[in-house]
């Protein structure tokens, strides 16, 4: 490990701040993290801002304004490693629902003076604008995974972040399939693991917070859902949440518009 502590910066784009707060959520490990890296730019934690360049940048949020579309390039230029964190940064987030409609209509309904609003037609992930070194999925991200990526980077090893289905983790934890045992629609078979199987552990189907797994077969899953009684509206609603514009979810959902 280098003698000098790596400089870490946290950047916010269109998002709810939940993912970057996961860093502060690392209660037990927070002091160790603060000891291992120099937190150089993290407005949620400190007003002290150290100038770049930065060794690691965590980027939260999607690009939704012309201003942000420019700003992300500045962040990239100032960063050695750029890790996008969360569903917004990796898939456009829930605000990417605008991609299926006319954003101007929303603007005219929501804002009293729409002329002051400068927004893009689409909400897009960071990787559509700049090269991204690593993506951490989830809405929000899992703090264990965030620590793992920082840890791996500090120790110059590969992070243990799986891209397989949620089902593997369910079975490793000894949870029976909720689809098979109860007929509960679950997005687990096409969703990437990483959340610690939160919903199936509480007898619920997976909501797909971690986006599509490495080789998703949405068609097969949704056909089974429909066999179990899910109607088109339910399918559409389930696929269009936090990862609505993630490739496999978007492609499958368009069939049920």
């Amino acid at each position, binding site marked *: 490990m280098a003698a000098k502590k790596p400089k870490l910066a946290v950047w916010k784009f269109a998002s709810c701040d939940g993912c970057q707060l996961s860093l502060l959520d690392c209660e037990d*490990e927070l002091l160790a993290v603060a000891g291992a890296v120099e937190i150089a730019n993290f407005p949620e934690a400190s007003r002290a801002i150290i100038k770049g360049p930065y060794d690691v940048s965590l980027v939260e949020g999607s690009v939704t304004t012309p201003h942000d579309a420019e700003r992300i390039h500045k962040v990239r230029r100032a960063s050695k490693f750029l890790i996008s964190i969360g569903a917004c940064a990796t898939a456009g987030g829930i605000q990417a629902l605008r991609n299926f409609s006319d954003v101007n209509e929303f603007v005219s309904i929501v804002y009293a003076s729409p002329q002051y609003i400068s927004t893009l037609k689409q909400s897009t992930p960071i990787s559509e604008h700049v090269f991204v070194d690593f993506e951490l999925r989830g809405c929000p991200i899992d703090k264990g995974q965030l*620590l*793992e990526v920082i840890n791996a980077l500090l120790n110059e090893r590969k992070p*243990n972040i799986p891209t397989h289905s949620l089902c593997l983790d369910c079975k*490793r934890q000894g949870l029976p399939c909720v689809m098979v*045992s109860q007929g509960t629609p679950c997005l687990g078979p096409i969703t990437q693991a990483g959340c610690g199987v939160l919903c199936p552990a509480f007898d619920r189907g997976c909501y797909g917070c971690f986006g599509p797994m490495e*080789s998703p077969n949405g068609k097969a*899953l949704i056909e089974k859902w429909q066999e179990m009684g899910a109607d088109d509206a339910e399918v559409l609603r389930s696929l269009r949440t936090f990862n609505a514009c993630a490739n496999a979810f978007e492609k499958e959902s368009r069939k049920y518009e």
Partner: protein
Amino acid sequence: MTHAVLERPDLKSLFNILQKAGYTTIAPTVRDNVITYENVTDQSELPIGMTDDQKNGSYRLKKRKDKSVFGFVVGPQSWKKFLYPARLKLWEAHRNGKSFSIAKPENEEKKLAFIGVRPCEMSAISIQDKVFLKSTFVDSAYSSRREQLFTVIVNCTEPGGTCFCTSMDTGPRAKKDYDLALTEVVKKDQHYFLVEIGSDQGKEIANKLPLKEASEEQVSEADKRLNEAARKMGKALKTDGVKDLLYENAENPHWEKVAERCMTCANCTMVCPTCFCSTMEDSTDLSGEIAERWRTWDSCFTMDFSYVHGGSIRNSSSARYRQWLTHKLGSWQDQFGTSGCVGCGRCITWCPVGIDITEEIKTLQECDSRKSKSN
């Protein structure tokens, strides 16, 4: 050997005697709407009067009309979770200046007694024995658990909807490798377990049980039920020439058809009682002073599984399904001298979309590419 009978009220003593002999008793019980294997200390925790209705991609727990203790088949989990845990720390390393030292985790191995092992599952344990104990290398974590194991079989008098043990010659009656075997008989006026002894340690425990000598009628009643069970399998798989069939059909277009339904979710491999693949996970603490190596269950359905420098070898779902099936029923025979399938039907029930191993083999047999070549 004469058969003995354990009356239903005396089932309690089986648990007591095994516990007195130092065993932790593991048995089926109802949890999360399914029947799973857990630490069960008393017979009252068994799924008394329950059954499971199993179909392709569907499992429902139901009440029975009678008070059978073992009136169900196999659930989503197999005994492998105890002998071959899903996640296990193999060792950790501590940095000492420029060198490092390795510490093995202290494994506090309990003596386990499995009560309610089905004949197909006993076969699965024997298959994993070949993999972990009788190959070139012995898996020490497996052997330390396996050597102390006590097994109580429950033969199957009511096969489930996805069972095909008769096709794989693993049931419905256990033939070997067990310590004690029970066959449950529930009649209007009688409820008993016919007991067979399979080993010396089985005999030791049996000597302490309040057993009675079985009447001829009690033996023949159990036999009759087991013979009937063999004819009531939910599924069948024609195993003749199945290895060659798979070897010769690697390019069969049918694999693409399966891939349309297969989600590569890996459920089949997780619930399979013989699937033994694992991956190693190396981790460090933040300071880099301590490193750990963990072994976790893996599956041939993931991309990482076939990843070598440059990418994954089995990119497509068809290649991955073909790999699994060809290994399970074909190359397993070359590797371990036995089929890798015991006919428990778990992969059929627990596939969320209900892909059926017996149907896929049947279809391959029908569209065998060797047939079209000879035409």
